[in-house]
């Protein structure tokens, strides 16, 4: 995963790593983060860290689907939206029930029920879509697969957005907070419990995901398929199973991100658009198929956004990161961290 410059540079060891594009970006990010902390106050940084973790989850799923199935998933944001919706419909009745008969244990567990339900629904949705849509196309033709499957996901996105709008209406369905407890104090900064838990959840999920891909047999099979499909097939890997699993995993992660951020992103039909393109920014920033990089990229993009929104004004937080990502694509088409996965070139 090292870039060419890193291997041929004059600097030894860690210095070489430091002066690669990735290293420089990391340094710049940390500097900017500290500067933001000093100038704008800790709240901006906390926001960036909390959302950054979840963007990393979105990006990891997106990049996995691209690496394994060669699908550029335009409907990824809709899984996020489904996640918010499920969490809302599970959590709201529970909190109503809690108001009637309070119970501290249930109050602590109820949000997790919502998030878990979103995870399961997301996974099921992924399986259904793979079986109903992508499998059908794959059976018929593999010609221009990337473009065709991309257009399928565009269709899926439209169907999911407007289907949800028809059934549940276009209004905002949100909650103010998951845990009704006073905020906690972290190094002198007040952080609401929701944000803290969401951050921990993102980190734990990311860790589990990484462990799954690296250390388990199925995870290794998934990575094998993303590296060389034919070779994986010859090793007796069941391709259909891997593909179903990949899409289910990716959509479950997106739904989890949606459910966890319900208190920041109330559920409405087009809520997924923003997370979708943020996830794309992250993936392009760090390159395809780079799960660990997605974590860093998630924080970079989130920081960029909160900073833009703080210094330039709300509303511009989409324009500036877009320009930034376009610049990156221009200079380094394979992403900052330069991992060139085969899927990048159309076959």
């Amino acid at each position, binding site marked *: 995963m090292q870039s060419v410059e890193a291997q041929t540079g004059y600097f030894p060891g860690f210095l070489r790593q430091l002066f690669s594009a990735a290293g420089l970006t990391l340094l710049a990010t940390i500097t900017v983060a500290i500067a933001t902390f000093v100038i704008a106050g800790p709240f901006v940084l906390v926001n960036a860290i909390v959302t950054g973790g979840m963007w990393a989850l979105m990006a990891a799923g997106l990049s996995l689907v691209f690496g394994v199935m060669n699908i550029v998933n335009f409907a990824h944001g809709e899984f996020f939206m489904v996640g918010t919706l499920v969490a809302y419909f599970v959590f709201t009745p529970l909190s109503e029930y809690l108001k009637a008969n309070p119970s501290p244990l249930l109050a602590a567990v109820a949000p997790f029920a919502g998030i878990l339900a979103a995870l399961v629904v997301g996974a099921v949705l992924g399986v259904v879509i793979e079986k109903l849509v992508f499998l059908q196309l794959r059976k018929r033709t593999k010609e221009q697969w990337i*473009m065709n499957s*991309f257009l399928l996901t565009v269709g899926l996105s*439209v169907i999911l957005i407007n*289907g949800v709008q028809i059934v549940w209406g276009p209004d905002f369905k949100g909650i103010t907070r998951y845990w009704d407890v006073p905020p906690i104090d972290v190094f002198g900064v007040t952080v609401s419990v929701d944000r803290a838990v969401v951050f921990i959840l993102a980190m734990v999920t990311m860790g589990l995901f990484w462990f799954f891909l690296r250390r388990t047999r199925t995870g290794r099979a998934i990575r094998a398929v993303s590296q060389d499909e034919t070779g994986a097939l010859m090793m007796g890997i069941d391709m259909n199973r891997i593909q179903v699993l990949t899409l289910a995993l990716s959509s479950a992660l997106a739904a989890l991100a949606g459910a966890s951020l319900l208190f920041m992103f109330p559920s409405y039909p087009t809520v997924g658009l923003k997370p979708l*393109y943020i996830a794309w920014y992250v993936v392009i920033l760090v390159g395809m198929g780079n799960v660990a990089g997605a974590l860093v990229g998630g924080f970079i993009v989130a920081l960029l956004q909160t900073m833009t929104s703080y210094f330039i004004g709300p*509303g511009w937080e*989409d324009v500036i990161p877009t320009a930034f990502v376009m610049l990156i694509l221009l200079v380094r088409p394979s992403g900052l961290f330069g991992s060139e996965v085969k899927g990048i070139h*159309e076959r």
Partner: protein
Amino acid sequence: MAQETETARTKSLPIRERSRMSGWERAQNRLGVSRLGMLFIVLLAIIPFVPPFSREDLLRWLIGATLIAAQAIAFDFTTGYINVVNFGFAAFLGVGAYTSALLAVQLGVSPWIGTFLGAVPAAILGFFTGILTLRLRGIFAALMSWFVGLALLGIARNWVELTRGPLGLNTPTFLETASNRPYFYIIFVMLIVTYVVLRWISRSQIGLAFKAIGQNIDAARASGVNPTFYRVLNFTVQCAFAGWLGGFYAHYYGILTPQLMATSHTVEILAIAYIGGRGSIWGGAFIAFPFIFLIEWLRSNLTEMPGLHLVIYGVLLILVMIFYPGGVAQFYEYIKGLVGKRRGEQAVAPTA
């Protein structure tokens, strides 16, 4: 009519053959319109006077459909030829619309001139988008143009002093009349011009180069086609037309919001162009008419289900992509093949 001219007309013709054709046929060949296409155009020209369609509300649908048809042609010019989906298409449309509208509002430029001037910044932006996407292949170029579109949409939304943002910009209309019929003829002429110009380009040597790049960029480069030049050219031309059509949008509807530039609008055009058949130029333009009428009918009859028409777009897009990737254009070729077979060696209708 001699039989050999009939069959030969389907291909590009040598001069010798061309001299044998009548003046009318030569004109048809030059415009790239078949007899069936001519019939369709004539039908379209008289339809605003045919009773059910002469109603003002149906005329509005007709104008909407014609506008979509022209956009689908411009969209297919890039998608079907160089095989790059310009996912920011609607944004370029919006650039043209906003330029023309702002020129009219701020400087008092006549909409008739402003519409053409609107094509200029759209073309320039298209030129730069073409350069931006050069190093990227297929899908990454699509993503890049999407990002450009998102950035433009963001600017239109947030630059409130200029565009009034989501409040919408009131724009002067082309004419003072309340009737829709003159507007139909404006967009009708624009549709014909768009079709003839883009069809002409795509049938020329340039179009051949576009197709070569779209199919295999490396092979095209190896055989001496300069992908840089042709891709940028394609983007510039497409965006110029998008901007021009955007000008009509601004001065017909009289109100302009950034929503015009949203991705969902691009998806609408994309679905129509694909259902019509990519790489055919005419497919999307043809299917737009029955399709938009169906959609508008659904929309006016099922008001309690907003967004249903978009679900239909999505479902149809998926079904076409999976089961019939050639779209309506391929179906037409199939029918033509059947007719041709039955008539043996007899004449077949030329491609539209």
